[in-house]
């Protein structure tokens, strides 16, 4: 199986996943007893007649059989047609566009940072195993691994925003005076100031997992014969570690990248709510509290699932490129 066939297989697999997500979305929605129109009519308390009710059902396509409705929802989700917001009447996709971009920026930065730092520290911990550095790093990782993210966030706010006043405690963009148009440099700088603390929180939340995983993977390979050979050849310790050990140990790490994304989405929801950062997480919070806004929640779930599937797909591709065994195995 060449690279092309491998990629084709992954594409088919991703498409199946997307189909499954859409189906789950549809199932959740049809789980509700009655239909949205019936709920709307109930809220009007009899100020609407039977004919108008049937008309509304017909207009929204709710009188059609299940499989037709399923097809409709399949098509509209695939074309990102989530309908309009109940309150403002704006298309849901427009409401989500900016938060989505902000979330991708936040999660991407945090993920990349924590992977790089986590792998470096993990290699160090494995190399100096049972030493002081190793004990500190693994214990620290275990603790950050099991500390809930809102706790991390609150401590970060308390230290860096309230005590030290280094960064703003919440928000995502400063209140520019009315009519003031910031230069693009100013804009980027301001955005950076607001993104630092949420990123740091997410970084602390995820880095422990990477340290532990890298350490375990490196320990798995560090006693292999080819490592001994490399040492015997007289290669520098650093070359052995990063070229021979880490390269082989990194394979399981790549699969974890994709899975880490799924948990990162959850972490981002809480972090963004905590920092009032205008992302999908804050949008989720506004869709839950005080009254649940189901269509928006579903759109959010669909988009985050899609993000995770795409991240998975990219990780799979990387895996295929780095490890030739996958392609031909």
């Amino acid at each position, binding site marked *: 199986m060449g690279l092309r066939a491998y990629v084709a297989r992954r594409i088919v697999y991703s498409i199946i*996943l997307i189909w*499954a*997500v859409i189906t*789950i979305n549809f199932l*959740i*929605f049809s*789980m*509700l*007893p009655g239909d949205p129109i019936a709920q709307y009519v109930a809220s009007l308390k009899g100020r609407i007649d039977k004919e108008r009710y049937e008309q509304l059902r017909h207009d929204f396509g709710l009188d059609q059989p299940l499989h037709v409705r399923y097809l409709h929802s399949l098509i509209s989700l695939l074309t990102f047609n989530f309908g309009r917001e109940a309150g403002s009447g704006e298309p849901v996709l427009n409401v989500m566009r900016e938060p989505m971009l902000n979330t991708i920026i936040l999660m991407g930065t945090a993920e990349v940072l924590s992977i790089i730092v986590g792998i470096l520290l993990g290699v160090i911990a494995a190399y100096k*195993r*049972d030493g002081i550095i190793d004990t500190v790093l693994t214990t620290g990782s*275990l*603790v950050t*691994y*099991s*500390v*809930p*993210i*809102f*706790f991390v966030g*609150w401590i970060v*706010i*308390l230290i860096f925003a*309230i005590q030290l006043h280094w960064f703003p405690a919440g928000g995502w963009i400063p209140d520019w005076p009315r009519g003031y148009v910031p230069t693009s440099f100013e804009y980027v700088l301001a955005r950076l100031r607001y993104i630092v603390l949420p990123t740091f929180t997410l970084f602390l939340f995820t880095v422990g997992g990477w340290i532990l995983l890298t350490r375990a993977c490196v*320990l798995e390979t560090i*006693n292999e014969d080819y490592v001994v050979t490399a040492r015997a050849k007289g290669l520098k310790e650093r070359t052995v570690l990063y070229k021979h050990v880490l390269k082989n140990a990194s394979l399981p790490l790549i699969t974890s990248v*994709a*899975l880490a*994304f*799924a*948990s990162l*989405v*959850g972490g981002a*929801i*809480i972090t963004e*709510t905590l920092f009032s950062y205008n992302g999908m997480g804050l949008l*989720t*919070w506004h*869709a*839950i*509290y005080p009254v*649940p806004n*189901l269509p928006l*929640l*579903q759109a*959010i*779930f669909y988009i*985050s*699932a899609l*993000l*995770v*599937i795409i991240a*998975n797909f990219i990780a799979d591709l990387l895996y295929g490129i780095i490890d030739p065994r996958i392609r031909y195995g």
Partner: protein
Amino acid sequence: MKTLATRKARLKFTVRRFKNVMTQISKSKRGTLGVGVIVFFVILAILAPVIAPYDPIRPRRDPEQYPAFSGQTILKIADKLCYPVWYKYLPWITRGPSERIDQFVNTLILSDGELYPKTTSFQLRDRVAEPLTVTAELPNGTVIELVQNKEWTWDIEKIRQVNIDPTLATNLPNGTVISVKYLTGFEITENIDILSDPGITSSETLNKINFLTNYSDSFNIEFNNEKGFKNDGCIAIEYSKTSSEDEEITLEIPFEYPHWSPPKSFVTHFSARLEADTSNARVIATVYIENKNTNKTYLISSIADNPIKPSPQFLHYSEVSTSNETTTNVGSLYPEQVIFPLPSNVSFIVKLKFQNVNQSATLYLDNLQCLLYGNSFGLLGTDNGSPYPPRDIFSTLVHGTRVSLIVGVLSALFSTIIGLFLGLISGYMGGFVDEIIMRFADLLLVLPTLPLFIVLIAVMKSTYGLVNIWNIIILITFFGWMSFSRSVRSMVLSIRERPFIEAAKAAGGGKFYIITRHIIPNVFPLVYVTLATSVPGAIITEASLSWLGLGDPSVPSWGKILYDFNVSGIAVTKGLTEYWFWIFPPCVAIALLATAFILLGFALDEILNPKLRERR
């Protein structure tokens, strides 16, 4: 006999193995720590009703002692947003009087050719404990002391405001700084029950009450130990008419108010029952609080329009300081600030006026109390009391241990069982079944669980109106078995090929026999480890859901404490620095319990999978 012996032997073996593992855990530092913390929390969970004295969801003062607050009306245990009781020992918390100077700049504006002062009334920042002096510093440096009532007046009781005479303000040059000097005080205050025995269960309580009357011949006061509300004793005031007037008796309970801050609110309460020789007899009760230092008596409530009539049952009267009647009687929206400005000697007074009595009557008084709510309570203070009355955070925290342990352990148990079952089937059967199970597991692994949980719970909420703790356990279980079933499957795949399985097959062992007798025992060490390591995830997921307000609102979980904090708006107004004791204890508890299970899991991993030990 034979089976009994083998069973006994097997039990012995199991016990020995368990003991063996326990000794090994006790040798590992991490394991001991983990087990210690878990045992601590388990004890906390079991003893919760003993340790935590208050109801974690709807706490209330005993309605038997305060029967006016029974049923739907609840007498709160403390005021909202209390500090912990130990807060006053913190070095940076000030105590005592403090002088305040509020300054304002007199600004004159020109309009129609004449100068007008921009404003002539100033709002003071703090409560005024003692009257004030007002000085004006002119721009050239001269300082004038302003004369009270001539040049300025105040309304400190009602709206904390100083008014300057407009003509004077017009005469003061632009830029004059007007300084208002006054005394205020700050202290962490505590709840004060002025009678420690409001149910009047012993005659000694009567010694704390002064009975004052101009008609001493008419009244006879004694302790009655059977006629009280709940038959636990009460005050009996025996009255026999000696004059033609309406005769009056005054009950006075003197006490000392020790704090430099006023209480946050107060409640008065009493129950009364009248026995008289005529049904027209009435007793009119009026409640006052007298501050002896300022020599002012404040009417709290008068029940002239609802007097005590002869009746076979007790009637209950109560008044809260925020009620319309009290605020209008005292003449301030904050009656407690007016009545208790400084540490002072105070009296709680109930005046009883007997009307229309023929010859004699007996009034039974019970449940007499005046409660002053301070701003500190319990070990961890109270929350903002929404939608129910303020809760004792410590009690909620202790009861929350149960929820976290139950959710964590049960979800881990169920998901491990499902994972084991599906992993065994998938690994041993292989083929089509394997493919289906593993693809399904892959799908679930890829789904972002928290957004999915949020959607599902939101749907459940709008469908059934509520979510209970079991829904959450089921959700966590359903999305928690995948990675374990994968590792079980891979283990089964390698075990399946080993010679002893082949031998068992050759000996005629069926699938079920081989799985239960040969494969499961080999997989089991992994089960223990997974049990321990999947508890933290479940605990944190439950806490996160409750944090977002998607938990069971009738269950006192740790995440719910944090949700209450989130939606109280305290984080925005007062900040984490002041109310850290509200959120950090539950956070630390979640982190500790989760870490403990992870440590236990790692210790078990090292003990039960000795391969790892050799490598390290």
